[in-house]
């Protein structure tokens, strides 16, 4: 157990909880499935809008606010709105890329969707179930289906556990395979992620960044998830290693029919891997469309500036660059009206007062900007 607490793996918090409740596995499981079914039945009645049957994950008006300042009695007086009213859905087997500058709430969004942090408000429907309404037991039963790959492969692996144990830990916890077959199963997962079998007993410090990221991916995929949040999985890696990891992620998606949320600040990587792209600015989605649409025809001025800022490795092609002045404002006192108006080149009077609606302008291309008709 002491190892367990030291471990920084994603599934850990819930693993510890799961252990407490696993005294009577079969009975618990039955209970869980019953509860899940019940929750599923209840959902449609509560929601006015029906859920999209093709969507594996649907996020509605998700909010995550952190208390920023407290008064004398410890009551929060102001909030940092890390995720502020975000809605989108992801179809099965597709990838949604989330891009934005650092501090725009991409990572918090990913973690809140997985309920690694409780949401302040809003709903996350995973396969028709609102996960924010599930109790701990039901949530634990759902955990293996939703996994996360973290950004930094150097700090997300326990330095005290050998690779085999790291990958097998959560599998044993959730009792996906019998104990006797665990090693075989782990070796199989390692093989599919491109890790040779003799790594089984080695420790994470013996590996390079790319290999560690493979271990992280294997850890997540060992649970046979249906949905994986990739939180900047290649940002800490070199270009040539990046390509290996991206290809691995794509292969695994094809093989296992995975659905990804791919969080990154690297637009070229996002364009390569995603089917849909959402652009975030200060906790809100400002644009959401299919990859082709958004790269060919970015509608929001922020998206336009962001895309034009990407350096292109071609000395002859100097794209016309839109340079944004200033820095991203503090999310504690986000600007009134449109959050982007302080840096926008097309700022109008209305932008300073009224927040634009996040509207569909055809073909699922959603934008929140006053440049386009609001009604």
């Amino acid at each position, binding site marked *: 157990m002491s190892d367990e607490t030291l471990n920084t793996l994603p599934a850990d918090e819930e693993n510890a909880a799961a252990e407490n409740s696993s005294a009577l596995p079969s009975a618990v499981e039955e209970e869980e499935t019953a509860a899940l079914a019940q929750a599923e039945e209840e959902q449609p009645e509560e929601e006015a809008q029906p859920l999209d049957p093709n969507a594996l994950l649907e996020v509605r008006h998700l909010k995550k606010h952190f208390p920023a300042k407290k008064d004398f009695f410890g009551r929060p007086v102001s909030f940092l709105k890390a995720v502020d009213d975000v809605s989108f859905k992801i179809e099965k087997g597709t990838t949604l890329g989330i891009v934005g*500058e650092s501090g725009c709430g991409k990572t918090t969004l990913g973690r809140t969707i997985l309920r690694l942090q409780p949401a302040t408000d809003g709903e996350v429907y995973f396969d028709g179930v609102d996960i924010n309404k599930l109790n701990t037991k039901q949530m634990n039963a759902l955990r293996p289906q939703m996994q996360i790959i973290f950004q930094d492969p150097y700090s997300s692996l326990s330095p005290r556990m050998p690779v085999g144990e790291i990958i097998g830990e959560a599998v044993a916890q959730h009792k996906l395979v019998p104990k006797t077959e665990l090693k075989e199963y782990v070796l199989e997962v390692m093989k599919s992620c491109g890790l040779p079998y003799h790594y089984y007993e080695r420790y994470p410090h013996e590996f390079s960044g790319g290999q560690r990221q493979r271990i992280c991916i294997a850890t997540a995929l060992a649970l046979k998830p249906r949905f994986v949040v990739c939180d900047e999985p290649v940002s800490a890696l*070199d270009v040539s290693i990046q390509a290996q990891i991206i290809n691995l992620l*794509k292969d695994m998606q094809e093989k296992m029919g995975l659905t990804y949320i791919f969080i990154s600040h690297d637009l070229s990587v996002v*364009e390569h891997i995603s089917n849909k792209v959402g652009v975030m600015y200060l906790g809100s989605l400002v644009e959401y469309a299919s990859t082709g649409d958004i790269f060919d025809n970015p509608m929001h001025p922020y998206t336009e500036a962001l895309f034009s800022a990407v350096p292109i*490795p071609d*000395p002859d092609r100097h794209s016309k660059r839109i340079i944004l002045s200033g820095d991203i404002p503090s999310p504690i006192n986000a600007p009134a009206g449109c959050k982007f108006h302080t840096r926008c080149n097309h700022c109008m009077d209305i932008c300073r007062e009224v927040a634009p609606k996040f509207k569909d302008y055809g073909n699922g291309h959603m934008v929140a900007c006053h440049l386009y008709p609001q009604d």
Partner: protein
Amino acid sequence: MLFKKQQKTSTQGEENKPSRPKNSHYLTAKESREIAKSNAREMRKYEKRKRVKNVDESVYTCKMQDENNIVEFDDLHTYFFTDAGVSKAVDGVTFSIPKGATVGVVGESGCGKSVTSLSLMQLVQAPQGQIVGGSIRFNMGDKAYDITKMPTSEMRKIRGKNIAMIFQEPMTSLNPVFKIGYQLDEMSLLHNGCTKEEAKAHSIEMLKLVGIAAPERVYDCYPHELSGGMRQRVMIAIALSCDPRLIIADEPTTALDVTIQAQILDLLREIKDKIDGSIMLITHDLGVIAEMADYVVVMYAGRVIEAGTTAEIFHNPLHPYTIGLQKSKPVVKRKVERLYNIPGQVPNPIDMPDFCYFKDRCDRCIEKCNGEYPHFIQVSPTHRVSCYLYEGQEKGGSNE
């Protein structure tokens, strides 16, 4: 004595580094002792050389091969004496930086690009890291110095004044306990010997030059009060404050967001024209290189494998590694089904093979690749590549 102590404290790194190829993953105690002994001996030798005082200028004065160059690296070797063996971080690097040009150095992490620039500043982590061979000729205008032979006391007069450096992490390279103003003034007080008032006026002017809107306010700020982009601007202001002839920008935008990166790159370009200096730009981002650089040097495992003008490297890459690097990076609006990936990993710098370092990862190997490390082949007057595939395509004179 000092060295021995330091080694003892840092021995935990020993088992991390696989060193011997003979299937053994770990070092025996005997081997480890031997390494420690020889390291201490070597390091003492080099440290002694650097600490000499009152050296005659003629010892480190040299002649530039080409007067139009600002810096010439000539067969530079910088080694690290680690507990697992000697790590050849820079192993024979030769290239030059012309006056007024931007030279981009690309390569993966650990390929020695940062160590090359640190060697030029004499800032390699000592006593473990030492320049063991080759020369770095720096053009001072009327004379030229060989930096590898300069004692530390003399180097201090050049460092910061004639060669300035912008570091990768603006968060960690500014001192958190001093105000921005103090850190900026330090430069002109030390190198230009002016009064405090003059220094302040100069610093504020520098802050203005790098596009900071309220220079007087920022002058009185502590680093933590500024954002990443602002801090990087301050770093650039510090680098510029003594009118350096050469600015080394070591991954200046890696820690920044794309939109801020665009601002900083724009600023660097503007400033280069203003001060008429050269920039050595170290980065792993090919996009940044394509946009900024006039010449590109591609490094791999401590060696230069290809060098040429930006157009040559991007339109006609020759070395399989350069080609692989370009193909493995996804590019916006250039659709590919599957990214090319270079198989395998960079060889261990402690046990470099004696054949081409890229051979094990190369998909275009020929029989000759098993031989010794390939020499440079001059494909055009500015373009050279170190690969056997291009033997016989030589044009122009051979390189040193």
